[in-house]
């Protein structure tokens, strides 16, 4: 497949996943604020800061809005055209990438991505966000799920599909680490204790952001505790939004492209991804807390960037003087 096309498929998939995660993050935060509204002395405005921080766009946010309140934060994360990571921007970029790869993806995939894009662009999309943000976010997440389902059931499971899978899972690992890291940025209201009521609500919000609350309840009995939540979200081997699961599966997809065995590596992307995969297989939650949760998550994010770069230079930056495949 054309290198440029592989690159576009990969980014198309990343952007859709990113849009979905932004919707999750905003949705859960909104619900969390509603829960919090019943609490005395809650500082509503401050509660949006962690979301903005997790997107690493503090400066842009401050530059774009006069009043830094919840309304501004929601706009920033959803429809703000000047925020390169807003849901609007992500879906626009996903569609641009899809447009350049129309002959590779199925018509059904294109229609789904186009429908989602037209929705966020439309007046009715804006209206829905104002009148019922919950439904707006639902449309985005369901739209993304639909895209994944349509992709799996209408596209040949070949190289292009592998690049799409890798994009989705790599982005998901990154987003999940950011969602978990949000808790690092959240300040407990003064007078509240770690392990107290608010603290627990916040950890539950983190789980909900990853659609993980129900799965978590099945895995752990008793109270929602920080180390258990972190353990579940980082290291669970079978929950599809955990970091370990995402890394396992994109590692497998990488090997599927090159045809090399998963216990070996043929290129730099596979080497880095294998390394991360085995680290996650053997790490304990005790190690992570000793290292520092925030620091650990940052380190994961950096390694994901390295893998993405290596993937690009292996498959997408092919120079003129390489082996010639004919036929």
């Amino acid at each position: 497949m054309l290198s440029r096309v592989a690159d576009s498929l990969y980014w198309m998939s990343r952007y859709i996943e990113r849009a979905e995660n932004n919707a999750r993050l905003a949705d859960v935060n909104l619900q969390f604020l509603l829960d919090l509204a019943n609490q005395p002395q809650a500082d509503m405005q401050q509660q949006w800061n962690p979301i903005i921080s997790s997107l690493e766009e503090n400066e842009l946010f401050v530059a774009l809005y006069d009043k830094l309140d919840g309304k501004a934060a929601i706009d920033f994360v959803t429809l703000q055209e000047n925020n390169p990571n807003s849901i609007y921007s992500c879906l626009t970029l996903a569609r641009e990438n899809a447009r350049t790869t129309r002959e590779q993806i199925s018509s059904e995939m294109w229609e789904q991505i186009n429908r989602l894009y037209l929705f966020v662009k439309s007046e009715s999309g804006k209206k829905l966000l104002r009148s019922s943000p919950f439904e707006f976010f639902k449309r985005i997440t369901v739209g993304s799920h639909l895209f994944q389902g349509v992709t799996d059931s209408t596209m040949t499971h070949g190289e292009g599909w592998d690049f799409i899978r890798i994009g989705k899972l790599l982005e998901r690992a990154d987003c999940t680490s950011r969602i978990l890291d949000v808790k690092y940025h959240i300040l407990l209201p003064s007078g509240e204790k770690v392990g107290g009521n608010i603290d627990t609500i916040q950890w539950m919000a983190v789980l909900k952001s990853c659609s993980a609350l129900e799965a978590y309840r099945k895995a752990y009995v008793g109270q929602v505790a920080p180390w258990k939540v972190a353990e579940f979200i980082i290291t669970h081997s079978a929950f599809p939004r955990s970091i370990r699961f995402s890394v396992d599966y994109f590692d497998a997809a990488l090997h599927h492209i090159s045809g090399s065995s998963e216990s070996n590596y043929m290129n730099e992307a596979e080497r880095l991804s294998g390394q991360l995969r085995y680290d996650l297989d053997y790490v304990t939650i005790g190690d992570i807390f000793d290292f520092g949760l925030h620091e650990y998550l940052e380190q994961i994010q950096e390694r994901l960037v390295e893998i993405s770069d290596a993937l690009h230079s292996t498959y997408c930056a092919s120079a003129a003087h390489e082996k010639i495949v004919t036929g």
Partner: protein
Amino acid sequence: MGDFFTGYEVGDFFDEMFSGPGTVRPHYAKLLDRFAEMKPEEFERKRDLAASTFLRQGITFTVYNDDEGTERIFPFDLIPRIIPAAEWDVIERGLVQRITALNLFLHDIYHSQNILRDGVIPKQIVWEAAHFRSEFMYFDVPKNIYIHLCGTDLVRDERGNYLVLEDNARCPSGVSYVLQNRQVMRRVFPNLFARHRVRPVEDYSQELLNMLSYIAPTGLTEPTVVLLTPGIHNSAYFEHSFLARSMGIEIVEGRDLVAEDGHVFMRTTKGLKRVDVIYRRINDDFLDPQVFRKDSGLGVPGLVDAYRRGHVSLANSIGTGVADDKVVYRYVPEMIRYYLDQDAILPNVPTYLAANKDELAYILDNLDKLVIKAANESGGYGMLIGSQASKAERERFREKVKKNPRNYIGQPEIPLSRSPSFCDSSIQGRHVDLRPYILYGEKVTIIPGGLTRVALRDGSLVVNSSQGGGSKDTWIIGENEERNNGVVE
């Protein structure tokens, strides 16, 4: 007669559907019956369904110099344009004759130039043509075919005669709309297709791929064919991608290709892969910065070298633009006589050349009656419709024509035929043209029908999508139609 066509005015034009007020032409009779039984709400629903299908599938074109979002839907009119088989047979023969002569002409002027020596066409007209590529004199193109794809625009005058308005022999566009319009119509009016025997258009992409494979460098049984696009920002990108998809070939940009040792390769995830045939949707000027425009970022350095060596084939060949120069166009009937010893089956629109002294005087004296066109512009640009232009515009064109007579022609304004179209909540007559698509490979293949473009603005004669035009599905109704009339239903 159904409500839809009550009060429909035929006007002073040839109407495709009605021969007089309330008198339907036989080949439109069944369509009229269908509309008679349709309620306005049903028609409204069908219009919505068609519009949402186009939008959802992203069937759009790009408009330049337009700040409000660059993508637009090409407006689609639900009332098909129907051509009976007997008429179509004549058109088809006329187009085969025309493309045969144009190819003989191109081969001649890039070799011995007999037609110029014999004085049939003035030498300087060819030599001064903007798209004549003297670099390719004596170059032999694969299978001796220059124009593999041609879109020839036909119009009908007030008596219903078909005339050739122009040939598009470089990168004709629009065929994807023919295929998409048909797909949407089948969805919106499933029963109509059961009642009529409409000739199918769906095998176009297969014919296109057959033609492209046919012109591959000799000795290759399974050539690698690609479509070369300027990229996503080109107005016809949707079409490029659509055609590549329907043929199952790669769509590439210049940056995906690299020329080495006289061969062209594409960059893939598994290294370089050789390319044998390029269906290019980039004009000559931008193909190769080493040979043509140096500032072209769209092309591939070294591509022309590979082409000269016969290692890669191009469709269309380099240098076909001289055949669709509007001054050269005037001589196509002469070419047909010269090469084929036949009269043109499809006549040209009468054309005056500003390059000829007496004709120039006629043009300048009649600016308010003529249509003035630049020799090498398309898309409705560089054109003056004298009767509708302001005095200032006409004077502007007078200066242009006087300054560069070689570059201008004048034609009488043809009162184009009209076809009933849905506008402003009622059905009204709107001017139409027809662009059939011709493929020249092992044989000449013409898509049955082609693209009917319609000028949706009241009174407008300009059908280009960039100028407010829309399109219609075009039906060629099979020859058994008349005999089965009344039986099929």
